[in-house]
């Protein structure tokens, strides 16, 4: 098929350039500081309630590793189970193939409009745009997705795509875009939620086709699990005649029992709740209850190439909880849109470039550097993805893809200097000459690239004598 993978947004600037813009947005900074601060504290409480949290994380990690090591076997098992219960399974190598499958199925069901449950997989493949091009309009029903859709905006968070918007901004979007809403709408979250209820209710009750993602799919039984809060998921999963679920091939759990681990890990990590308001489980088609047709689209779109990387594949354990975004000091300041992908934050920085599969793309290659490697992400990850390890691993791929550069020459030179303690000592002596450049004991202006440091910080003043020179003189 060979078309561009839309997991990273076409024409995105590199992360440092995008961040330069978003860091200036004081409204965004305030909104994110407030929202991530709120959820961080709540998550910590929800997690500290379980004294076996570490055991659950280890179990979650091991279950997902088992899935990845036997992915083909489990997928075939899932396909058999879903088919046996009246579902139809489709396979899609890439975004284009998945989109055309969903479009074909929607048209076959006679729908000009589909209702959608929030789904990262369908956002990743830009399904809405593809459906629109084919004459089918997709209505996002998750509140945050709706805010993004009505705001003609892009998502900035995995769980809450409109996290960059505060209540006042959301009110403005609703006033502008919802026909039945007038200026009296308040910015009370309850009132805003209620406005969304009124706006979507007719659409739910009349929809013929719904499109969803899946949080989990149980191979042994063919059961699909969707975890949500608002009830929009239940509306989509039970009211329309046709349900189309698009899921990444890595979203499997081998056994029904495995769900006991993930139904504890996911809600506490993501919305910091003991349990989210609604979790729906269905298996194929249940006569007389819910959709009469069920289609499951299994999406690759870069997952198999990610799987081939023995270090990078752990990113496929991800259950899209967003805990890593909420604790990330970089994300909190730049916001999600700076990452130029539907997957922002720490997990996005390792997932988007791997799914995209092109480290020659300067934007993708900049993502693994969008981290100070502080490790807060790994600490909270419910499936123990060592994000810093993968970031560093992908950095070496970015370096390899880039070839010779000013940086690689400098690194090679530094490596040569450090390769001998005599060369190193000579360099220290040469460097100490720079102390004569300083005034009043400060070093405030260095030439490029040192200016990147001294633009905001004084640099340390070189010492007249290194420690090793002192040691040799006094102790050697």
């Amino acid at each position, binding site marked *: 098929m060979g078309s561009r993978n839309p997991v990273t947004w076409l024409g995105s600037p590199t992360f440092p350039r995008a961040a330069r813009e978003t860091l200036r947005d004081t409204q965004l900074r305030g909104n994110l500081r407030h*929202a*991530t601060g*709120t959820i961080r504290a709540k998550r910590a409480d929800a997690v500290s309630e379980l004294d*076996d949290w570490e*055991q*659950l994380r280890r*179990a979650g990690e*091991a279950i997902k590793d*088992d899935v990845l*090591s*036997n*992915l*083909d*076997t489990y*997928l*075939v098992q899932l396909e058999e189970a879903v088919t046996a*219960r009246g579902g139809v399974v489709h*396979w*899609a*190598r890439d975004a284009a193939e998945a989109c055309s499958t969903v479009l074909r199925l929607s048209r076959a069901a006679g729908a000009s409009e589909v209702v959608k449950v929030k789904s990262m997989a369908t956002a990743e493949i830009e399904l809405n745009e593809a459906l629109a091009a084919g004459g089918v309009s997709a209505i996002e*029903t998750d*509140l945050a997705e709706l*805010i993004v859709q009505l705001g003609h905006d892009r998502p900035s968070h995995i769980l*809450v795509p409109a*996290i960059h918007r505060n209540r006042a901004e959301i009110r403005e979007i609703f006033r502008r875009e919802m026909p039945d809403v007038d200026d009296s709408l308040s910015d009370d*979250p309850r009132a*805003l*939620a209620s406005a969304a209820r009124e706006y979507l209710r007719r659409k*739910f009750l009349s929809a013929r086709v719904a499109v969803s993602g899946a949080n989990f799919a*149980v191979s042994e039984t063919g*059961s699909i699990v969707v975890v949500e809060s*608002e*009830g*929009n998921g*239940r509306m989509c999963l*039970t*009211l329309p005649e046709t349900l189309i679920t698009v899921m990444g*091939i890595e979203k499997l759990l081998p056994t*029904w*029992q*495995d*769900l*006991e681990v993930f139904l504890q890990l996911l809600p506490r990590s993501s919305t910091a709740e*003991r*349990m*989210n*308001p*609604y*979790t*729906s*489980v269905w*298996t194929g088609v*249940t006569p007389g*209850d*819910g959709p009469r047709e069920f289609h499951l689209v299994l999406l*690759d779109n870069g997952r*198999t*190439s990610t*799987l*081939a990387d023995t270090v990078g594949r752990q990113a496929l354990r991800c259950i899209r909880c967003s805990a890593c975004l909420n604790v990330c000091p970089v994300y909190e300041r730049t916001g999600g849109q700076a990452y130029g992908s539907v997957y922002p934050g720490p997990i996005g920085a390792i997932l988007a470039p791997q799914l995209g599969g092109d480290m020659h793309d300067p934007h993708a290659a900049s993502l693994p550097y969008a981290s100070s490697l502080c490790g807060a992400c790994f600490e909270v990850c419910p499936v123990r993805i060592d994000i810093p390890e993968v970031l560093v691993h992908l950095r070496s791929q970015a370096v390899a893809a880039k070839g010779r550069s000013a940086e690689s020459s400098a690194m090679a030179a530094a490596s040569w200097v450090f390769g001998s303690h005599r060369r190193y000592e000579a360099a220290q002596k040469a460097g100490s000459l720079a102390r004569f450049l300083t005034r009043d004991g400060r070093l405030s202006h260095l030439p490029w690239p040192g200016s990147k440091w001294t633009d905001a910080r004084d640099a340390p003043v070189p010492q007249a004598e290194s420690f090793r020179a002192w040691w040799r003189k006094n102790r050697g």
Partner: protein
Amino acid sequence: MADARSEILGRISSALGSSAMGAPRPAATPVPRDYQRSRGFDDVESLFVARACEYKASVHLVESAPETIASTVDARGMRRMVAPDDVPESWLAAGVDWVRDAGMLDVATLDSCDGALTGCALAIAETGTIVLDAGARQGRRVITLVPDYHLCVLRASQIVGTVPEAVAELDPVRPLTFISGPSATSDIELDRVEGVHGPRTLDILLITS
């Protein structure tokens, strides 16, 4: 070109470095299941009540269902309610226009109901969750979704302590709905507020006798 299915399966095989699917691969770490299956709660009933209330469900402890159903739906101002056709007649309080669903009611009819009355499959104390599995006294999933009010009757013996205990009891091929409080959202500033598309009010009658 190969079809998508064979191509994806082939890519997986080669990514994992083995030629034949189903051939044994170096086993991943065995899944450590040393987390707690049961947390040994002394009193799952009280825990359930406390946790369900934290998520803004109202729990009423009663000795028998019928009278309390009548007073509860009256207090909620219910005029027309839907119930699956296998709930006991004694649950159908006077003064309410009851619509019985045998699986045939259309959405418009359900939308005309103020509320729904059902039983449930089980409840989880630790998380304050009730689970419906479309079994006895529960009806189709849509019944407890379209009307804005849900009254759920739960027997104390149906309460389990933990999520693992619940998962072990449930049959995955039945359509399952886990419900923890009324519908809610955290989508505005990551602060939870109750009441979106699902029922905005959830009453649970817990029969203790």
